């Protein structure tokens, strides 16, 4: 695929322009295929709800009304999107190095638990100190949790997908054991919980919005992750590890350390999601921390193709789907699983859409040679192959 005849460094002016064009084209290709996939998924979903006895156009309208149609709905969407941005990073960051981590749920749970314990320990000091301590504790413990899966992968050869999933079950069991045993607040009779960190120490809403600061955490984390994974030298090395581990090793990259670091960062992000649940919503740790955000985060990371910046809009989209689910139940009497069906359709259509990359001549700076049939989507030789 690499064309040695055209090294970027020595490109002439028009070549450089074309280079910029290539980037724009690639972005346009991604955007079009993705939005085309979303439209197709909507179409299939429309057929599904029609069979279920509802008018698809009305369903789409209600979904829009429930997710983006009013300032209440939009804030509802953003509130649901916030934790997804953080848990999605747990899958997206290690994915850059070729790892498939699906244990964001466990990292969020232990992160929340650690944050609650820290918050309780620092009670009585200033709220800023409490929240900073909780943030660091959530990040550290969530990071260690997934870091362990990464460590097992590179040093012991344990499959990270399985180990991170199993660690989630351990995390939930640990949470239940601690809040029902050593950490239990004696007054939490029928709902075992830790003590409350104190109303004054809680994370507040962003001024003027009905959305807590967790949203800012999410956006900032995604931007920072983008800089680390797509701009920095570490990110470049990570792409190399993800592309070809042997080549990366031969170039002298510390592959093992890098893998563990990426897992630490990803797990840390999910841990912060748990911390936000404790600090902004519950004020204590209990079984309500097990919310499924970690699992939805996998879907978000996948739909965003593990691009940290793309996670922001994708998480918002899925937050919106979640926000609209109640209205579908209440207005059309559709079962709760309806939006899960939509998410599933979306997932599959986007997966199928992956095969379309490089098949549209318009997005290829270098199209197929005239000999090949240039018909769109019908080309027997993917035009990419000749670059």
């Amino acid at each position, binding site marked *: 695929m690499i064309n040695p005849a055209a090294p970027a460094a020595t490109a002439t002016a028009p070549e450089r322009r074309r280079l910029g064009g290539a980037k724009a084209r690639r972005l346009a290709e991604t955007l079009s295929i993705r939005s085309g996939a979303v439209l197709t998924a909507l179409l299939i979903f429309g057929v599904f709800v029609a069979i279920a006895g509802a008018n698809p156009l009305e369903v789409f309208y209600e979904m829009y009304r429930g997710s983006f149609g009013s300032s209440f709905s939009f804030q509802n969407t953003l509130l649901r999107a916030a934790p997804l941005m953080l848990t999605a990073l747990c899958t997206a960051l290690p994915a850059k190095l070729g790892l498939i981590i699906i244990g964001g749920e466990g990292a969020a749970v232990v992160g929340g638990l650690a944050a609650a314990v820290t918050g309780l320990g620092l009670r009585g000091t200033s709220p800023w100190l409490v929240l900073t301590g909780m943030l660091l504790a959530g990040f550290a413990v969530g990071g260690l949790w997934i870091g362990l899966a990464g460590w097992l992968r590179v040093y012991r050869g344990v499959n990270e997908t399985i180990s991170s999933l199993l660690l989630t079950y351990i995390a939930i069991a640990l949470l239940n054991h601690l809040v029902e045993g050593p950490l239990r607040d004696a007054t939490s009779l029928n*709902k075992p919980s830790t003590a409350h960190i104190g109303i004054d120490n809680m994370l507040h809403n962003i001024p003027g919005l009905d959305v807590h600061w967790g949203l800012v955490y999410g956006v900032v984390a995604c931007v920072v992750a983008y800089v680390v994974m797509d701009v920095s030298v570490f990110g470049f090395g990570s792409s190399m590890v993800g592309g070809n581990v042997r080549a990366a090793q031969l170039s002298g990259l510390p592959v093992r350390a890098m893998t563990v670091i990426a897992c630490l960062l990803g797990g840390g992000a999910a841990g912060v999601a748990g911390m936000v649940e404790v600090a902004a919503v519950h004020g204590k740790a209990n079984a309500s921390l097990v919310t499924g955000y970690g699992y939805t985060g996998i879907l978000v990371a996948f739909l965003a193709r593990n691009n940290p910046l793309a996670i922001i809009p994708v998480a918002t989209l899925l937050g919106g789907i*979640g926000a609209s689910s109640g209205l579908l139940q209440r207005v059309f009497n559709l079962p709760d699983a309806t939006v899960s069906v939509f998410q599933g359709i979306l997932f599959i259509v986007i997966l199928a859409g992956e095969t379309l990359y490089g098949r549209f001549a318009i997005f290829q700076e270098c199209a197929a040679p005239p000999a090949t049939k240039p018909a769109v989507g019908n080309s027997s030789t993917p035009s990419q192959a000749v670059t």
Partner: protein
Amino acid sequence: MSNEISVVRSPPHLRAASVAAFLVVWGTMLLVLSGCSKKSAPDATQGAPEGTQGKDLTVGFIYVGPKDDYGYNQSHAEGAQVIAKMPGVKIREEENVPETVAVQKTMESMITLDGATVLFPTSFGYFDPHILVEAKKFPDRTFLHCGGLYDETKHPKNVGSYFGYIDEAEYVSGIAAGLTTKSNKLGFIAAKPIPQVLRNINSFTLGARSVNPSATTTVIFTGDWSMPVKEAEAANSLIDQGVDVLTAHVDSPKVIIELAERRGISSCGYHVSQAALAPKGYLTGAEWNWGKVYTDYVNLIRDGKPFPHLLRGGFKDGFVKMSPYGPAVSEDARKKADEAKAKFMDGSMIIYRGPLKDNKGNEIIAAGVNQGQTDINLEKMGYLVEGVKGSVQ
């Protein structure tokens, strides 16, 4: 990266066609989006007047699991159906709402988009912080919660909490179980060792042992409210140990009752009637009667009368009921069970009376001391009575 740099360009006409295709895709999307936003302007106001029309009352119900779960959520959904039939009452339901900000947003959505004025968020974990947060935000709406957690010294005035003494029904179930068992081994599959659950296990056992002193109850805790696989494993393990009557306190006893029937043993239900799942072995069951509670609340609120902030009751108040006896229950058992129920109805029955020992031999209630249904000590129960095999740890 260098692989993006091109050598050959596509012919101009092709590029034009592709650009056109690209524009069509995006144009369609923009049209769809603008169509939506145009349509939204008049329709968005539709939701508002609904709740304020005349004396119509919109009541919102929120469930933590599926409303047809043969369990906790279904018991509330059946109650909701009762008030849905009342004239001038409209209900809105939402199921599978987790105990996170999601339930806060569902409440707000029911209030702002559906015009609901009364809300029944039914899961125990919805109360703190979610209902308390929303009750402060919407002081003119009423929030009624199942669980009996209301404390007038710290909770808002527009909140109420209700719960039933369902252990009375467990006691009666225990009598039917105690007189049906041949192995004298009863099985109880429970979610967590919390006071509410322990009270049901203890009352069931005391009921069984009141008619059959050699009966014991073996309890297994699954650790969570909805763990169908663990519940099935626990059921199989108990049956293998010789248990011949099974009951449960989990969100949905469905798999347990079905498994008991398939393995040819008897079962007692919980939350709602599971008789349809076990036509042969289903003895009876402790059921909620939320329809009565919800009707009372709605009547009070519609007439503008104050509603009780803390409402509790057992058989006598119509909060709980028994499933009709199944074919496996003997005449004698029916008679004994009905007698106990009659005593609950006239108030002469007290389940927890001294001397009472826990299953480690410690005296829990001294001789001559009676702890009636409203006794505060029962709310903090942390023991299993003599005759229960299991541990709260």
